[in-house]
């Protein structure tokens, strides 16, 4: 039998594979009319492109890489490695591109929700005809996604249930003909309006933004920018190509931004590259205002953009942003002011891009005589302020006299110094007044050692420890600490023994986040000394010698079942999620899955306990972390116990999109 299968595989390789056919029709979701000239891409989900694919998947970006761009990247990587560059990373990069079968690829489609898919050169994209029909013939049997892109319509994948959701992959068998696909595309909308200042004049060059709230994989709420524009000399803005949905509209500069330089054109302005701003205009900084004209985000009104609607007259009045100053002292561990210190301040925000970019361009006055510092032009907001002892001045070598290798070594060693120098990190909240008397005490960071213990017969393979990520998230609303070398780093000391070390840990309160857990395992317990840091925060004291013990268990359960829509039909692409009862802050216990093309779903690696199982017709990625969603889900569904190594089967009806 084994022999026959191998023979069959061999035969399939030499003789033409029995090809499949896939096709269907594309309709306007609002009118039901067919849409012509929609670009339809058939993308394989199972085509191996090596480490390059893994790198792309980790990028979590939304883009399409053409064959030409791939070829260019490969050529450049090759050219670099041939330049006699001995850097191992360059060689690795060249190897990575070498493994990409460029000639078999038409394009690579990347999306955060459904990862990497490859459009093979054997079945390039097609356009729909005047009846909205499309068909791919001679398709190699494999697993595919269908991606639709039509002018004036939101880009969508087959089976996609929400704007940011993922589509459904399906298998095409040899000789299979599947031409019954019906894809409904939602026409895009636009929103426009006029922004005025308090005197009724047009507010010129004001950033206007459409945003929505999303959640990340650790359950943290984030502000996501959907579209941006700058007002013109009439105060007018227009944002277009909006996917139908519910959004928030803001005008003005985000807190913590914009005050940092005179022109407003420096770093930190997310609009500086993509929108026109007259060189003869001076940037005025306005407070971030939410539609219909409130400063308080919690009172912001939702703007519902129906499919294909041009919403006009979304006008607002903006007021100048007030600024304050932050003053304090920096002291080293002997209570003396350090001679050379770098002080940076970054905004803590729900908006990741904002957090990352705001570190730059803020000037800090520091007086080494008494350790006092002052930061001016700070707007309301919550900030992370960090001080870093630069140590005695080090003469910079003459780079022109150094080889590339020596230069790299120099930078690496100076970064090493940066990591180990004493530092301080504090959270500062600015609310309508100056902040005085802040004290930053520099302390050397320490290391925390720890070990993974496995409490079951199965053990993860040694290599799997390397793919795990342990993070200590800092305090504050966003909890992001963006300063060089400050984010504590996780180092695997011995994969075989499961031991690790976290460097650069400053005394303080943290939240332990574990990502990349090997499939089939869950975290049963995590203790820092005696403290339960799985269900509570992790408080690190000065020269803390306690060990971090993390217990993994493979005693997990699997749950599978079928999802039906409200009318009782098996439904594809439906998000299903297990919500841990009473443990809503344990992000890793939430277990999501999507129903496949046949309406079936399987949830694996479930830690034992009580869960609420729900399915929703439309749900954005990670939106199940939303407390409102959880409350709703728990009010509708009954908790189910998931017992040790039980493989249960349950059937569930998806809650219609309108029920939210």
């Amino acid at each position: 039998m084994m022999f026959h299968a191998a023979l069959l595989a061999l035969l399939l390789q030499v003789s033409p594979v029995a090809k499949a056919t896939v096709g269907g029709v594309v309709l306007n979701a609002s009118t039901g009319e067919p849409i012509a000239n929609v670009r339809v891409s058939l993308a394989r989900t199972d085509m191996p492109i090596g480490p390059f694919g893994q790198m792309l998947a980790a990028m979590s970006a939304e883009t399409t890489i053409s064959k030409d761009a791939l070829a260019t990247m490969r050529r450049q990587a090759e050219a670099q490695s041939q330049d006699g560059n001995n850097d191992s990373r360059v060689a690795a990069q060249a190897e990575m591109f070498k493994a990409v079968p460029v000639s078999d690829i038409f394009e690579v489609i990347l999306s955060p929700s459904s990862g990497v898919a490859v459009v093979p050169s054997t079945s390039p994209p097609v356009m729909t005809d005047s009846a909205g029909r499309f068909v791919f013939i001679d398709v190699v049997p494999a697993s595919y996604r269908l991606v639709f892109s039509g002018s004036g319509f939101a880009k969508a994948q087959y089976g996609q249930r929400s704007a940011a959701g993922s589509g459904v992959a399906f298998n095409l068998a040899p000789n299979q003909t599947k031409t019954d696909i019906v894809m409904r595309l939602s026409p895009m909308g636009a929103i426009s309006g006029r922004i005025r200042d308090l005197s009724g004049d047009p507010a010129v060059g004001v950033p206007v933004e459409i945003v929505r709230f999303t959640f990340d994989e650790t359950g943290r709420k984030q502000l996501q920018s959907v579209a941006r524009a700058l007002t013109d000399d009439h105060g007018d803005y227009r944002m277009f190509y909006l996917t139908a949905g519910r959004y928030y509209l803001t005008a003005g500069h985000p807190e913590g931004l914009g005050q940092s330089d005179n022109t407003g054109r420096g770093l930190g302005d997310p609009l500086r590259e993509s929108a026109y701003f007259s060189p003869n205009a001076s940037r005025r900084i306005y407070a971030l205002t939410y539609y219909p004209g409130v400063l308080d985000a919690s009172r912001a009104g939702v703007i519902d953009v129906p499919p294909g609607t041009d919403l006009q007259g979304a006008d607002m009045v903006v007021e100048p942003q007030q600024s304050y100053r932050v003053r304090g002292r920096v002291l080293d561990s002997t209570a003396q002011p350090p001679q050379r210190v770098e002080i940076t301040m970054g905004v803590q925000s729900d908006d990741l891009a904002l957090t990352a970019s705001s570190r730059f361009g803020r000037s800090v006055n520091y007086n080494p005589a008494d350790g006092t510092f002052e930061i001016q032009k700070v707007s309301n907001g919550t900030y992370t302020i960090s001080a870093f002892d630069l140590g005695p001045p080090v003469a910079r070598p003459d780079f022109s006299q150094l080889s590339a290798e020596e230069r790299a070594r120099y930078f690496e060693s100076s970064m090493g110094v940066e990591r180990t120098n004493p530092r301080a990190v504090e959270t500062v909240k600015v609310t309508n007044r100056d902040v005085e008397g802040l004290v930053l005490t520099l302390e050397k960071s320490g290391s925390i050692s720890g070990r993974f213990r496995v409490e079951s017969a199965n053990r993860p393979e040694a290599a799997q420890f390397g793919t795990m990520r342990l993070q200590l998230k800092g305090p504050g609303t966003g909890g992001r600490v963006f300063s060089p070398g400050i984010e504590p780093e996780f180092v695997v000391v011995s994969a075989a023994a499961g031991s690790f070390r976290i460097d650069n840990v400053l005394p303080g309160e943290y939240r332990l986040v574990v990502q990349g857990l090997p499939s089939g395992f869950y975290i049963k317990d995590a203790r820092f000394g005696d403290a339960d840091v799985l269900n509570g925060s992790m408080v690190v004291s000065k020269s803390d010698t306690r060990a971090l013990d993390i217990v993994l268990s493979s005693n997990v359960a699997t749950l599978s079942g079928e999802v039906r829509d409200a009318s009782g039909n098996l439904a594809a692409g439906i998000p299903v999620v297990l919500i841990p009862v009473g443990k809503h802050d344990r992000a890793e216990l939430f277990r999501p899955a999507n129903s496949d093309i046949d309406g079936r779903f399987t949830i694996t690696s479930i830690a034992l306990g009580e869960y609420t199982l729900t399915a929703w017709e439309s749900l954005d990625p990670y939106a199940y972390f939303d407390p409102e969603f959880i409350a709703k889900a728990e009010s509708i569904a009954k908790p189910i116990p998931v017992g040790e190594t039980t493989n249960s089967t349950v059937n569930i009806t998806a809650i219609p999109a309108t029920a939210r």
Partner: protein
Amino acid sequence: MTHEKAINCAVIWFVLFSSVTSVKLLSLLPFVALVLLARQNLAQPQTSRATLEGTIIRLTASLPQPIPKVRVTLIRRLEGAPRPANSDSSSGLSATTNNYGKFAFPNVEPGFYDVKVQAEGYIGPGSSVELESGDVIKDMSIEMKPVANVSGRVLDLEAQPLVNVPVQLLKSSYDRNGQHSYESAGIAMTNDRGEFRLYWVTPGRYYLLAGRPTAGFNPMEALISASFGRRSAAGNDVPPVLGYAFYPGVTDFADAKVLDLQPGSDLHVDLPLKPSPRTFTIRAKVIDSRTGKPPARASASIRTETPGDDSSAALSSIPRNIYSTTTGQVEFQGILPGNYMINVVVDDPVQPGGVLNSQAIATIPVTVSSADVEGLVLSVAPPLTITGRLRIEGELPSHSKLDAFQVRLLPVGVSSAVLQYAQMRFYTPDGFVNADGTFRVENVFPGDYRVYVSLGPARLQYEGIFIKFARYEATDVLMNPMHVEANSSGQLDISVTAGGGKITGTVIDARSQAVAGASVVLVPERLRFRTDLYQILTANEKGAFSIQDIAPGDYRLFSWESIEENDWFDPDLLARSESKGVLVHVTELSTENTSVRIIPAGAQ
């Protein structure tokens, strides 16, 4: 009567005189104050402060109008210091004009000030003023002109809107080496209706460009612009636009029409554009001139000569052709019709220490019109080492020993982008002079150069020392560019001398009154390409200037009231201003004295 009082009296006289001739004007202005323009130097102690008041007026062809809400900033200038190019207005005193366009600084420390003006929808160079102790100036009048706006739509040939197309105004400009280019005055993207709006543009002459005239199809660029485009289109796909068009709808820059944007104008322009124009392929063969064979390793890049390829310039230079070692063949696809420069670089194996040595390059112009370009030969040549001797004529200042000199060759006659490329990759060829006057300049690639001599490595301009003659292969390379070919073998002979001439003088206005703080530009009368002979300085608060170290020869001295930096290299501007400059003949160690009349901003 002191000099200053004479000026003050003359001002009173002028004001009274002009009040008779232009009654209409004065009836509209706060003319009572005008009469008080003369300084009221009241008998107050030296420490007392000054007062400055005035009006900001809209400059129009018809009636002058006051401008409210103008931010007026006083920035103190140190005596003799040039006007700061990018003065930080936050460091000065500031005031805002009221509804009658009036501003007031009641308590100013005496000094020489630049007056900077900022208003929404207006521009103006501002002014400068000297305030002495106790001065009360009540009627300073500063003009501003309204800016211009250009809006419109970019449409395909079926009049359908084209989305996310960059639209920009291009302005002719010169760099400090006199190299000409077109600079962008800001880029707007079209929206879903194909609309764009470029507001508050400085009035002037511009070309309007929609789309990007990139050097053919660059997949990396497409990837980047697609992700940028997506950002302004709420994450959804925008059909790519590969074509471009200059106003009034042409792709050949030679056919493009200038938009002369007048102050206060509001222009609407619809630009038709072919979104997917026909493209062509360039096939070429790389030959190493040393061996007559294709080199083992080569990379080639292409750059468009069409203006407007600003931010993507670096991307377009990414070598992206496939080079075949056996055939030497390179290929550029997706090329739109136009003029291009191809750069070929041959990298020899890396020398110990990681330095890329003895490369060979070629820079070849290509024109693509309506067919593929086949059979182009890109002959690369290695760089030469040019040897020579530097001699000193006469006495030099004591610190200027021969071995303190450096000889530098600056590439000319190629597009500035190629120049940038060359500088980025190889730096400007230069070499130090030995104590016996001999020197070697290494890494000189075939091409045209201008010879510079500097004292010490940092300065491009020499101080007090100028080249008396420079000869290479029997050519006078002071009067002509220095032409280096692959097989050139000549010596570069340079003779330097000290003892340049000097010009002193005063900048005056139409009424022969001294003008404080004006720019003075010394332009060589015949050797206009010798950008090293140009000198630019600012007159002091008394209008006086002094130019040193002028190589003997004929010069023309200009003072423009308003001029963009380096625009004095613009032959058209020079031709228009020629008769308004003063011709000065400078001989060794001579001192000429002359006054130069300022050319009003409106008369350029």
